[in-house]
C-alpha cells in the first residue's frame, strides 16, 4: 500500500494545510493502492503507518524550505534535519523522520514530504494534493515534472 499521510492541526489555521489536503483527497476516488490518512498531530505515533508501506508521502506545512505560497518536495533526509536533538511532546514529523531508520520494522519505504509554504489557499492545496498523488503513484519523487 502507498500512503499519503496528511499532517497538521485543523483547529489552527496556519497549520491546517495538511488536513485540507486530506479533505480534498477524500473527496476523490483514489487508486486502489493509495490510501490517504489524516495524521493529525500524532507525531511519533504515525510510525505504524510507515511500516509496511510501499512508499509514504507526508503532506505538511513547512517554513523556510521555499518561497512563500509555494509547494516544495523534500526527501526524508532533508526534512529530518529540522528535528530537535531529543524527543518532546511537540517533536512532530522531523523527529519521526530522523528516528525511522533506527526503529522501522521491515523494509524502510521511500519517504518524501510535500511541503506547503505560506498561508494555504485553494490553489496551493490543489497543487499539493496533485503532487502527493503523483509521487505516491510513481512510488518515488525523483521524476516529478509538470507542476
Amino acid at each position, binding site marked *: 500500500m502507498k500512503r499519503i499521510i496528511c*499532517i*497538521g*492541526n*485543523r*483547529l*489552527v489555521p*496556519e*497549520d491546517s494545510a495538511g488536513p485540507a489536503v486530506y479533505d480534498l483527497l477524500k473527496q476523490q476516488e483514489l487508486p486502489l493502492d493509495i490510501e490517504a490518512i*489524516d*495524521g*493529525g*498531530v*500524532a*507525531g*511519533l*505515533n*504515525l*510510525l*505504524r503507518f510507515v511500516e509496511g508501506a510501499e512508499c509514504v508521502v507526508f503532506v*505538511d*506545512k*513547512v*517554513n*523556510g*524550505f521555499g518561497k512563500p505560497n509555494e509547494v516544495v518536495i523534500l526527501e526524508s533526509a532533508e*526534512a529530518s*534535519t*529540522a*528535528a*530537535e*536533538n*531529543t*524527543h*518532546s*511532546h*511537540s517533536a*512532530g*514529523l*522531523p523527529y519521526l523522520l*530522523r*528516528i525511522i531508520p*533506527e*526503529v522501522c*520494522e521491515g523494509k524502510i519505504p521511500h519517504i518524501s*514530504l510535500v*511541503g506547503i509554504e505560506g498561508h494555504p489557499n485553494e490553489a496551493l492545496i490543489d497543487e499539493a494534493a496533485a503532487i502527493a498523488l503523483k509521487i505516491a503513484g510513481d512510488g518515488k519523487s525523483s521524476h516529478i515534472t509538470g507542476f
Partner: protein
Amino acid sequence: MMQKVMINAPLNRVEGDLEIRTEVDGGRVSDAWCSGTMYRGFEKILAGRGPLDGLVITPRICGICTTSHLTAAVKALDMIAGVFPPPNAVRIRNLTLMAEHIQSDMRHAFLMFAADLVNPAYRDVPLFDEAVRRYQPFKGETVIETIKETKKVLEIIAIVGGEWPHSSYMVPGGIVSNPASGDLMECLLLLKQYRSWYEKRILGCSLERWLDVRSSSDIDVWLEENNLHRESDLGFYIRFAREIGLDRIGRGHGNFISYGSLDIPEGTKVKGKGKHLVASGFAQGIKVTDFSHEKILEHVSHSWFMDYNGGRHPFNGETIPYASGRESGKYSWAKSPRYDALPAETGPLAEMITAENPLFTDLVSRTGPSAFTRELARISRPAYLMPAMEAWILESVSDGKFYTSPEEIIEGKGYGVTQASRGALGHWVQIENGAITHYQIITPTAWNASPRDSNGTRGPLEEALIGTEIKDPSNPVELGHVVRSFDCCLVCTVHTVNRGKEIGRVKVGAAIL
C-alpha cells in the same frame, strides 16, 4: 554583595509553548515564573457548535492525550444526557485510556526525562557512560526499545476505536463499536507483549514483585536483591537519581489533586478505591480528603485574560483574551486553577498519594515530593494499571451491550473529569437549544504550570523550582529535571516543519544588584 541573575529557559522537551524564567540568588533559584506563551482558546472554538462536536474537536487538542480528552468530553455528555454506559463499554473506554497512559509514561521517562541524564554536566558521574548507552537521543538502547514497544501497545486504541489517531469512538451512552472476541484477544496479546517487555526491560522483575515494594527501605532491599533489579532501567534510574540528588530538588507546595479515573464497571473483579481504579482526592502532604469539583476555581490575575475578582468555577469561567504585555503583572496564557484556594500538583505522584499508596506515601512523608519521586511514580504506574487492563479485556465478553441509547441532547449542564497521563483533566459543558453555549477545559498542565493566583501564590511548578541549586548558569540542567518531572504539555498547537533546529535555549541575563 550577593549577585542575582535571571535565567530564561525556554526548555525543549518541556513544550514549545512553555517558558520558565527564574531568578537565581547565591547559586539557588529564589523566584520563578512559568509562562504559557500561546493563546489556545478551545472554549471559543466550541461555543455555538453541536453538542457532540466536543467528541471530535477535543481529541485533536493534543496528539498525546487524545483519548483523555475524548474521555472527559464523553463523560460530560453522559452526565447531561443522564445515561450510564453498559459495564462493557466502561471497560473498553478504560482500556484505551490506560493504553494511552502506559505508552506515555515510558516515552516521557526514557525519551524526555532520561535525556537529561546524559547532559555533559554529569560527565564525571560514574554511571554516565552507561546512561549514554541507554538514553542517548536517537541511539540509546532503551530509547530505541521504548519507541518500538510503545508504538505497538497503542494499536489497542485503533482496534477497538476503529480509528487512529484522534479517535472519537466514545459516544454518550457507550462506544460506537462492538468489539469481536478476536479483536479483544488481539488487544490481550498486544498487552501481554508490552507487559513482558516492561517487566524484563524496565522493572527487571514481575509486576507483583515491584508492587510489593512498599517503603523507602523496601527499595533498598529490592535494589540489592539481584542484579536484574539493579541493571533494569528502573534500578538504573534509582541509582543515577540518587547519585545526582534528584531526591533533593523539586519539592514544591506538597499539595496533590486527582479527579479520579477509570470507573469501576459493575460486575468486575478489579478492586478500586470508591468508584474508580485511580482514586480521587486532594492531599496536603499525605493527608487526603475527598475531592469535589465544586472547590475548583480558576484565577486570571496573572494570566492574559480579562480580569475578574478572585477565582471562578469553570461553569462560570470566562476565556476572554487580554494581551497586555507585562501590564498588571500578567505573564501567561495559562489560567491558575486552585482547589479550595490552594495550588495543587497533579500527575502520577498525585494519583499515588491520593490513593494512599504505601510506597509513595512513605517517600513523601519522609522528604516531601521531589523530581525523583515524581518520575518514579510515572515509571511505576504501568505496573498498577496493566493487571486491570488484562482483567477488563477478559471480562469484556462480546455480548452486544456496549451502548445505551440516550435521549437527544438539547439542554443541560455537565462535567467530565478524568486523569490524563499528565494528571487531572476536566471539561465543563453547557448546552442550550441544541448547541454548546459554554465549554471550559482545565488541563493537567494548567494545574502544574499555572502562574500566580490572585493571592500572589506561585503555581506548583514555580514553587517546586524555589531553592534549586544551579551549579552552572550556562547549563542549568537542574531546572530541566524539576520542570520535566511534571511532564508539562502545552503542545496542543502548531506543528510545522521548520528549517533549522529549534533547540532549547538558555539565556543568562544581565546581573542585577
